[in-house]
């Protein structure tokens, strides 16, 4: 466990605490009522309300306080695990491309397109359950990889040109996805924009029927292990890391740059393509997104928090899903908006990516000293 306590992870924890502190202060500020008689009274009540909200925010995925007694919150716990699944998958996808030094930010579109394509298979195809689900996942992955082709092509032509192409692909995938969904599998009888129900054989196995806790995260964890093995233990992974740290050097040492860049982006697209489909076949049983759910963007923060290491991706995805579910509960039972999570996310990205910040020699030395003291 030595690596978990590395300077880097202490830095991550410090920044997470900073982000939570900012969110806390912001909530107090938003609760300050200027109309109260005394400033002190207003401040106390703002503190109380903020503390109540933050208690829900930070504990509700585990526990539920009901008439003075503490219960295990199975409902939110299931939601937590379910929400972790797509975040692990997009986190892995982004970790892969970031490892190769490519800024392919198309995971959102790949995820969306994959989910739409998978939904088509879920509606129109009838197969024994195991085959049907396998086919759905494969088609989603293939579609995601397909969406990655153009940015990958751009990236081998000119450094950083994949950024804009992948961003445009996100919009294209969204609009075309919605179009195909509305055109071919729309549920005309429902007032809302959603697809018809999926074929029963498509429904993903559940841990718990009542809470709809699906097995998606097992798949995601397994994939995290596989990608970790690929990146850290194989020659291919070594090549990708070399390309990521110095593509010129990698080229001179005989690595086929074009081929590897395209391979890694197609693999990443394939993984991102499967990120959304589990929620649909495991939880909803139909396609019902009218806006893009944002898991692809979340993959960026997951990958950054995990410092591109597939082994830490599930951990950082679980953290993000945890504050998500907590914030949803907070939004439901208090007047604090769940958008607080976005602010926390943004602060974490801003500070974590700032390599020159909290990472100076001085800071690292003082941390080393601290660790030395605590061990000695």
């Amino acid at each position, binding site marked *: 466990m030595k690596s978990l306590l590395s300077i880097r992870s202490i830095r991550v924890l410090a920044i997470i605490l900073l982000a939570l502190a900012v969110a806390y202060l*912001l909530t107090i500020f*938003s609760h300050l009522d200027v109309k109260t008689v005394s400033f002190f009274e207003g401040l106390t009540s703002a503190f109380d309300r903020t503390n109540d909200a933050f208690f829900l925010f930070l504990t509700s995925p585990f526990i539920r306080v009901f008439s003075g007694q503490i219960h295990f919150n199975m409902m939110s716990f299931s939601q937590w695990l379910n929400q972790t699944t797509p975040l692990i998958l997009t986190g892995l996808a982004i970790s892969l491309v970031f490892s190769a030094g490519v*800024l392919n*930010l198309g995971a959102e579109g790949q995820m969306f397109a994959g989910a739409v394509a998978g939904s088509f298979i879920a509606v129109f195809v009838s197969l024994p359950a195991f085959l049907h689900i396998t086919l759905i996942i494969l088609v989603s992955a293939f579609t995601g990889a397909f969406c990655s082709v*153009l940015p990958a*092509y*751009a*990236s*081998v*032509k*000119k*450094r*950083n*040109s994949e*950024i*804009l*192409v992948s*961003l*445009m*692909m996100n*919009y*294209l995938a969204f*609009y*075309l996805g*919605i*179009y195909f969904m*509305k*055109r071919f599998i729309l549920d005309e009888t429902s007032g809302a924009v959603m697809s018809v129900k999926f074929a029963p054989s498509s429904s993903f196995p559940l841990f718990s029927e009542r809470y709809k806790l699906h097995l998606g995260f097992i798949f995601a964890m397994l994939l995290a292990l596989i990608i970790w093995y690929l990146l850290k233990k194989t020659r291919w992974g070594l090549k990708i890391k070399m390309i990521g740290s110095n*593509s010129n050097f990698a*080229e001179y040492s005989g690595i086929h*740059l*074009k081929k590897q860049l395209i391979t890694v982006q197609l693999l990443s697209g394939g993984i991102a393509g499967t990120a959304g489909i589990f929620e649909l076949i495991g939880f909803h049983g139909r396609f019902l997104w009218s806006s893009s759910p944002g898991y692809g*963007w979340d993959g*960026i923060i997951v990958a*950054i928090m995990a410092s591109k290491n597939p082994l830490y991706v599930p951990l950082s995805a679980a953290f993000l899903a945890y504050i998500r579910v907590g914030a949803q509960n907070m939004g439901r039972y208090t*007047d604090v*908006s769940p*958008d*607080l*999570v*976005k*602010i926390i*996310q*943004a*602060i974490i*990205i*801003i500070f974590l*990516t*700032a*390599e*020159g*910040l909290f990472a100076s020699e001085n800071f690292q030395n003082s941390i080393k000293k601290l660790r030395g003291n605590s061990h000695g």
Partner: protein
Amino acid sequence: MVNLIDILSNPSFYATIIRVSTPLLLASMGALIASLAGTPNVALEGIMLFSAFSGTIVSALSQSLFMGLLGGLASALLLSIILCVFSLKYKANIILTAIAINILSSGLTAFLLSAVSGQKGNTSSFQSAVFPQIHFVFLEKLPFLSEILNNQNALTYSAYASVFVVFLLIRKTPFGTHLKAVGENPEAAVSVGLSVNKIKAMALIISGLLAGLGGMFLSMGYISWFTRDMTGGRGWIALAAQALGGKSVIGVTLSALLFSTGESLSYSLQMANIPNELVQSIPFVMTIVVLLVYLKVSDHRERL
């Protein structure tokens, strides 16, 4: 089926193009300046959104359009400075910082929206000031053109003025020369004594202020309230317009107008039976095709 000729012969179609081009032109001029300095400003979307929000709130609280304008610009300045400090001083990846700023802006505006107004979707309970429409008497004599060009919003005219200002800035001022020097060859710029980071920071700040004006058009141009995520991808389209138009002011202006035509057309075509999603995806298809053709033709050897 709505007849295309009916659409094209109606002056209101063109007036709509001019109107919807306002935020896009301002933001894509911002994208151009940042891109000339070699620092793509991916935070345009978030800056527009934040200015749209703070412009509305400040002008509603102060009951003054001018204060609202200042508030909107100040928030654009603030976000641009955050972008500069983290990416230029603390060496963060500028794309990732910009994406974080977009997330921050979306989250913070939604959070403050419900904290300030108690509403979840919009600030319609606040009555913000609105930028005035301007009527030019001399245009009245031109029958068709007057309907298109006259009575547009003050910010619309400012957007077109900004095109000229940016053109002059790039072509005629030392700053414009420095900008291009820094963007094209930073090492050479350093060797002649230019401060690369300072010029990049200036470019990002000007870029942010232009985007901020564009954002305020959305919430204070024709309507007087802010809705969640009301920029709806305009910051990204501005980046696309810049990519399409290359490094020339005229090119970027034309491609911004092209995207505006697409948007105006999508409003007209919504009445026809053409699915909205297909019309809305046109600008993105166009950008992707142009970018890829450009990459194919110019055959960069940079990476290889």
